[in-house]
């Protein structure tokens, strides 16, 4: 037996004595091949090692075909299912097949998308009067849409409306049904289609080519070099790559279900509350947190007392707020400090399942001293809230406070940084910064603004759904990425000296023929003759 090889790929040479290709070859080859025999022999000592290891690996994968097991399990399952009859057994199957129907799932997704879009168009969470006015009965929007529709379908709170949640539940059911009835069997099929026993089956694949004078073992080695898992049995070969890409969509569906479960947990088991606390005061977590759903169960940490040690704001040079900081101490029932942290926006505090967020701020009081007396604490009142621009004001009465029209000094502030002072007539008197200790003189009185005391706006919540949702997020990101991988399968059948190769892939279909051609170009041309 003599092998002729393209010198470039000589290292792939393998001399398998049990090769099925022991067909006597035409006589005219004989003269040509003799010279090549020496060539082969020359290379043999170097290649011996390589060849040995390669054949070994092939036989390794050959010895582990999970395929037959799988198919037998599948067959058994089918038999059992067919045996059990009865209406009760058939009903779930019917429901399943309806739910896993792709057009239904697409309809559900479109409906959900449309409802969400509607939810952003219709103002959410307004008072009924608002809708009466905006969507009146006598001039309906688009000719039919009035407030009656909104209240009948609950469109004023779209994202908790029964119609929306029902759609989501239906979609979740479809997801599960699809995973169960379509995707999992698909994986089984993908693993079952192992060896193809006829040329015709291979020719039916998206990519098919027949290689004259090629050996299946060479192909196996080359495919392995390209990252394929190769299985060989007799004259047939099965190879695949990127099986994860086939499994990943199942993972996507499971991740979606996980997120939905987590969302449900969040919606039923959370506590939430917000509080505005002046610097130096404290509150108990349990007083602030209110249950959201019927599964909300308070924990021990709700007894924790939160003390606001300090509230500060950072500013840009332009005077705009850059960050808020609240220095918080947590104390247990005995008054012992269990935790202390300075929180800011984007940096919440977490303790015993409760998360404290920095969300807002307010002006609590102004410490003012008059002619060396004091300091007095003047409470600041919010005057006008115009978008995000806040304005606070206070009033220092001067003279007889029991008089019918009290006169005094007004002080206005947009933030904790600078206070605008107006005199008794309401004329502008000056601007002072707290802590500057610089007195401002009004009608002979020396006013010193000692300090500005802010209050921090905190948001508290417990959410048992977050770990589940995060797990779902992680899984979704990962599986979506993996889904991009192509699952490529290649079958080959040795038929005499001709090698029939077919393959298919599920994603990168355009690149696949090129890749295949590149691989098949590497397969050495083989000429076999009986040496005798």
């Amino acid at each position, binding site marked *: 037996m003599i092998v002729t090889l393209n010198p470039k790929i000589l290292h792939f040479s393998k001399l398998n004595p049990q090769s099925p290709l022991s067909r006597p070859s035409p006589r005219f080859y004989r003269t040509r091949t003799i010279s090549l025999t020496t060539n082969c022999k020359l290379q043999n000592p170097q290649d011996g090692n390589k060849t040995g290891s390669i054949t070994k690996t092939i036989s390794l994968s050959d010895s582990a075909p999970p395929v037959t097991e799988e198919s037998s399990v599948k067959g058994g399952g089918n038999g059992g299912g067919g045996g059990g009859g009865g209406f009760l057994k058939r009903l779930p199957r019917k429901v399943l097949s309806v739910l896993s129907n792709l057009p239904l799932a697409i309809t559900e*997704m479109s409906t959900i998308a449309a409802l969400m879009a509607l939810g952003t168009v219709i103002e959410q969470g307004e008072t009924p009067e608002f809708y009466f006015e905006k969507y009146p009965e006598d001039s309906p929007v688009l000719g039919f849409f009035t407030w009656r529709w909104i209240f009948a379908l609950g469109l004023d709170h779209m994202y908790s409306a029964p119609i929306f949640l029902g759609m989501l539940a239906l979609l979740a059911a479809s997801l599960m049904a699809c995973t169960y009835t379509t995707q999992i069997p698909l994986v089984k099929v993908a693993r079952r289609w192992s060896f193809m026993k006829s040329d015709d089956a291979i020719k039916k694949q998206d990519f098919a080519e027949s290689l004259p004078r090629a050996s299946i073992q060479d192909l196996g080695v080359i495919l392995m070099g390209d990252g394929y898992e190769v299985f060989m049995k007799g004259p047939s070969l099965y190879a695949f790559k990127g099986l994860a890409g086939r499994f990943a969509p199942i993972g996507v569906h499971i991740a979606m279900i996980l997120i939905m479960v987590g969302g449900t947990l969040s919606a039923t088991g959370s506590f939430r509350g917000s509080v505005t606390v002046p610097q130096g005061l404290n509150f108990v977590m349990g007083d602030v947190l209110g249950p959201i759903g019927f599964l909300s169960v308070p924990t021990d940490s709700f007894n924790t007392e939160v003390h606001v040690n300090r509230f500060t704001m950072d500013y840009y040079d332009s005077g705009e707020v850059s960050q808020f900081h609240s220095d918080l101490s947590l104390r247990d029932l005995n008054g012992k400090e269990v935790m202390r942290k300075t929180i800011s926006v984007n940096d919440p505090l977490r303790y015993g399942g409760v998360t404290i967020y920095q969300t807002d701020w307010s002006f609590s009081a102004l410490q003012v001293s008059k002619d060396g007396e004091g300091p007095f604490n003047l409470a600041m009142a919010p005057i006008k809230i115009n978008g995000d621009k806040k304005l606070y004001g206070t009033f220092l009465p001067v003279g007889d406070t029991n008089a019918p029209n009290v006169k005094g000094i007004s002080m206005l502030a947009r933030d904790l940084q600078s206070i605008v002072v107006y005199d008794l007539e309401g004329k502008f008197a000056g601007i002072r910064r707290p802590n500057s200790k610089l007195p401002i003189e009004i009608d002979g009185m020396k006013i010193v603004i000692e300090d500005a005391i802010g209050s921090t706006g905190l948001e508290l919540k417990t959410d048992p759904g977050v770990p589940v*949702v995060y797990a779902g*997020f992680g899984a979704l990101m990962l599986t979506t990425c993996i889904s*991009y991988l192509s699952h490529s399968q290649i079958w080959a059948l040795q038929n005499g000296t001709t090698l029939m190769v077919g393959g298919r892939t599920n994603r990168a279909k355009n*690149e696949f023929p090129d890749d295949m051609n590149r691989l098949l170009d590497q397969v050495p041309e083989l000429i076999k003759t009986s040496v005798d």
Partner: protein
Amino acid sequence: MIFSILEHILTHISFSVVSIVLTIYFLTLLVNLDEIIGFFDSSDKGIVITFFGITGLLFTRWIYSGHFPLSNLYESLIFLSWAFSIIHMVSYFNKKNKNHLNAITAPSAIFIQGFATSGLLNNMPQSAILVPALQSQWLMMHVSMMILGYGALLCGSLLSIALLVITFRKVGSTFWKNNRKTKFLLNELFSFDGLYYINERNSVLLQQNSNFSFSRNYYRYQLIEQLDYWSFRIISLGFIFLTVGILSGAVWANETWGSYWNWDPKETWAFITWTIFAIYLHIKTNRNFRGINSAIVASIGFLLIWICYFGVNLLGIGLHSYGSFTSN
């Protein structure tokens, strides 16, 4: 000061280079195909220059503003055109698989770039301060992923729209007339993005002209197959970016606003977009629905991206209103 000059120069370089590229594209339409092979290549090189110009621009802004340059609409538009130029370069360097992407990415890049630097957004180019909620490491991940996702999805859905146009266009001798009519129709339908289509059509025409003498129907079929395939691949890629972007945004929201999902308008529209492209990918997996149906879904998705990306900012509603039109 030196930064603003540098930024100015880079803006002008990238804009003018991309304009030249576009002019070359137009010229290739008018001049005979044989003479323009070199032209075509130089246009690709132009995009590479644009890419470096925009990269430099973004870095300059990053250095002098001290934060990741994605805090307002202007910066995100620049980033979007940067994403387009990346996609263009990928398809340029990946010469083995010839596709029609560059016919879409180059005009898209110039359109976005032109829009961003035009007078429309007067107050925008000044680098704004970062509000407290945006001061997070998540800004980089969330916004860049979202915009890369938008860029890829826009490309993919434009390919699908091109597919639709080619499929429904009558094959006849009144070649130009037909074409103009389609253009007009499309301009009417999506006047906002008319520019894309014209250019997409141009490249398609080129391809078709070259093979005019051969079997046109066969070529048309091939082209449709190609467009279908590439729009699928690119939308799948954009879908990954969109997923990662939305999820990282949710995690960030849980750190900042106290909840991972607030049904904020922008969030909701991003989710709607995600759902539409999920529908697209599902239609693609089913053999019975392929082709036109998926292309229609992708073109709906194209509109949705613009609603999500621009519409919500135009109104300046919700929690994502940073750097919207109204806030200035």
